[in-house]
């Protein structure tokens, strides 16, 4: 009973003390629960399982899902949106995928990407490794975009792969007709069946639906909170691009090619590490709170600096056995602690220059390095070595 009339609707949920009801017109309204009367349950409509034939002569891809939505279905009766993870559902939503490959789906996790942990990175690495051993031509990982770059870096360090490992997601929800999910997925499948041979993120290159960029897993950042083309290669050019809708993949010379690396997995991580962004006036207490950590990455200012007042604390950490690596919060450009006094003092305190590594990549790397190498000297030089394209020797790229 509402507005002097009895209306029929479907009870959806309770919200802030109101009963949310979907009217016949499709609109939801929130009304006082006392004005509602129960009349019966909604009849179940069994979801029809579409039978989507796969083409066996096409390359084989494995899709490992961690929670990023590649496809979703809307129930317009209730307005509920459900994510689809199974191959048949994905192919129903994005039929073009069927022309690129045939697929196996491995549901690993259904988490929001901010809830990702090093533990799940390890599980993901093992799942991917298993697929590679199975002989697939490529692996696609669906992932929420927030921490996709961290995961891509982690997999880069943990896995040696002869086949492409492609992370993909969507910036705009998969339920909307304008979502970037389908084009990203199709481009990811193209990249995963291409001549690429390393870990990459494949997402929109521009705001238009024309091209996806292929970014190296260790040199990529989410640079915008909401735009489709949020992901950018930092310090290097993208590895290549995928044109849409043609699906044509072009790889740059610096992209590692398929088959160049032998399959392998080193999935140990030292979780007890931290990443700290320096700011003017930062108290030494904050730095000292990292006491006992095995590794600490500092995102310093400019060429890699913290204030002079922090240097004794940095020295203290190093003396206590923490591996301290300096990166720059500028994101672009490399650290050089030999130019100014503060830098020289930091080097004297035992800080290791992190070159042009991105701070968060350096964090993931220090976890991996310390998980696999206990000797501080060798761990330090591993941090400065280029393992998976995370450090460049020459700065060729401007802003």
């Amino acid at each position, binding site marked *: 009973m*509402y*507005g*002097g*009339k009895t209306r029929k609707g479907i009870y959806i949920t309770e*919200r*802030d003390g*109101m009963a*949310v009801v979907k*009217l*016949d*017109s*499709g*609109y*939801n*309204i*929130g*009304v*006082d629960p006392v004005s509602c009367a129960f009349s019966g349950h909604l009849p179940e409509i069994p979801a029809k399982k579409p039978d989507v034939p796969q083409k066996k002569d096409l390359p084989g891809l494995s899709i490992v899902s961690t929670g990023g939505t590649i496809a979703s*279905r*809307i129930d*317009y*009766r209730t*307005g*509920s*949106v459900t994510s689809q993870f199974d191959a048949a559902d994905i192919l*129903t*939503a994005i*039929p073009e995928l069927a022309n690129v490959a045939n697929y196996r789906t491995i549901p690993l996790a259904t988490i929001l990407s901010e809830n990702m942990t090093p533990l799940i990175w390890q599980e993901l690495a093992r799942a991917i490794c298993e697929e590679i051993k199975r002989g697939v031509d490529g692996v696609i990982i669906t992932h929420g975009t927030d921490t996709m770059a961290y995961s891509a870096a982690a997999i880069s360090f943990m896995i040696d792969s002869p086949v492409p490992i492609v992370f993909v997601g969507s910036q*705009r929800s998969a*339920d*909307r*007709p*304008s*979502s970037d999910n*389908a*084009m990203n997925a199709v481009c990811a499948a193209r990249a995963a069946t291409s001549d690429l041979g390393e870990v990459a993120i494949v997402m929109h290159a*521009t*705001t*238009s*639906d*024309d091209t996806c960029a292929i970014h190296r897993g260790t040199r990529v950042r989410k640079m915008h*909170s*909401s*735009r*489709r083309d949020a992901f950018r290669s930092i310090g290097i050019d993208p590895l290549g691009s995928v044109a849409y*809708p043609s699906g044509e993949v072009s790889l740059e010379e610096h992209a590692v090619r398929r088959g160049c690396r032998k399959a392998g997995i080193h999935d140990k991580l030292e979780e007890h590490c931290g990443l700290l962004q320096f700011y003017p006036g930062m108290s030494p207490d904050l730095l000292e709170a990292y006491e006992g950590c095995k590794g600490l990455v500092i995102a310093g200012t400019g060429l890699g600096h913290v204030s002079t007042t922090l240097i004794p604390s940095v020295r203290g950490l190093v003396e206590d056995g923490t591996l301290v690596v300096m990166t720059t919060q500028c994101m672009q450009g490399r650290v050089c602690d030999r130019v100014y006094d503060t830098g020289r003092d930091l080097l004297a305190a035992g800080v290791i220059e992190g070159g042009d590594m991105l701070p968060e990549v350096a964090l993931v790397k220090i976890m991996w390095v310390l998980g696999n190498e206990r000797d501080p000297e060798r761990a330090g030089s591993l941090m400065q070595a280029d393992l998976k394209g995370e450090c460049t020797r020459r700065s060729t790229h401007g802003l």
Partner: protein
Amino acid sequence: MDYNAIGLTAGIEIHQQLNTREKLFCHCLTLLRNSAEHSGEFFRYLRVTESEMGEIDRAAQEEMKRERKFRYYTYDTTCLVENDEEPPAPMNDEALSVCLTIARMFGMTPVRQVHTMRKLVIDGSNTSGFQRTALVALNGALPNGGEIETICLEEEAAQRVKDDIFSLDRLGIPLIEITTSPCMHTPEEVQQVAEYIGMVLRSTGKVKRGIGTIRQDVNISIRGGSRVEIKGVQELDLIAEVVRREVQRQETLLAIREKLLLRKASVHDNAQDVTDIFTSTKSTVLKKAKRIYALRLDGFTGLAGYEIQPGRRLGSEFSDYAKKCGVGGIFHTDELPAYGITAEEVLKVRTHMSACDQDCIVMVAAASDTLARCALHQVIGRAQLAVSERPVPEETRKMLEGGSSAYMRPLPGAARMYPETDVLPVIIDDERWNATTVPELLSVKAQRFAQEYAIDRNYATRLALSEKLPLFERALAEGIKPKLAAFTILSTCTELRRDGVAVEKISDEDYLATWHAVESGRTAKEAIPDLFKGIASGDSFENVIRKLAPTVSSHELKSIIHKIVADRSEFVEQKGRAALGPLMGVVMTEVRGSVDGKIVSEILRKEIDAAFAGKRS
């Protein structure tokens, strides 16, 4: 026509843009731009899954999907929200307030907790693929006893520039949607209700004015017919005609069915490739086409070409359906030979299709077999409806110039809506609802103007409906005489506009300054047209009034002329009345043309006579 006898029922949906400062879900101004000023563009594909595109076969659906590419123009006055690159801001509270005011004016019940929904719209006019809309109030009353079912607050769609290009300036302007129940039974009643609702909307003073800012959709059905929604009626005056023509269309479709039944007409899929018949055709359309297909409709001859409303035939309906597959349209033998297709070719096709005299052939030219088949499938579907028990399909149609309509898509079900999770629900509590005040209705205002200010009734109504109403009320508040303000707004400006003066460039401040100048005697009301001409051509009010002479009263004029004559007494003595011509010029320069020349010459003549007589005596 006895509309009661045929069981006409009609309802309307009115969409009116609100004149809020900012858009509904972002902080861009509600500014319309010239599409030539766009600062950038991008393009997107909109994707729909399952059966959301209607009954088109899957293969063709795929083909269409890939080709449906939409381009969007961006401006320095649009942002990432319009680009579907950023989540929406909270619902614009100013817009919600306007809706609540209107809801109160119709005596409606507000929704306690307003939920924003996503309504699927895949024609490209919304970058996201859906339109955000919220049900705000229910159950209102109309003076004719009818009911307003709902008020919704929605975001306006992007403006189509042409084809699949859209302009984002309009996207997101708040739009109020008012839906009546199907409570009207004659075309005139529909028009009256639309006019009344429009008047109520304008009474708030918070709605946009001008072409395209208000659009009416009309729902029409007759007994035996079906509910048909005609979208996009922009001119209020056309509503009754739209209803009349739709009634005519539905009645004619019913009559056509009777004829088809008598002829035992039937529709089967007998489509065939007839491309070979046209290898050396003179028809440019057919020559360009990769594939030409033909379909035989048994018993349809003469009826495909039968007029169902002015300018529209049953064949036009077939054509509209076929176009959904991306073909340009169809040909049918009722209209052939024409378009470069010869009688001989028609005969060949008829023979090839084994058609009798009563059979009509429909042909389609397309870029592929798939498209041609898709188009003919659409025609088969529509033709089957024509002989079915429901010969008037439920449809959404678009209004064509003059009031006829063309098929757009099937009537949307209620199902294509789901919650906009990025916008939090808004609570309308008793406090807010009770604080919502109702403005004076414009019809009441007009009456009051007529009484209080002794303005002509007709004038008062025009004033109340005028865009310049707020200016008029401001003028009254500032002590300007109502008649002066009313005359300027309604008469002076209308005349100037007719003379091609850009009156719209005159700001409210200039109006007020002008009236104050008249009231204080700084200028005469006769000088207003010249003042406005100056301002409209880009000059400032102060400059213009300085350039124009201070308008002279007749007393002042007499003393000016007296002085001029006295200063030139010798000249006047010599020339006598012949001095009139040369002195006329001197006087007119002095008063800068602000006085009627006839009056000047009259006074001048008297002065000269007096001076001359004085000297001689």
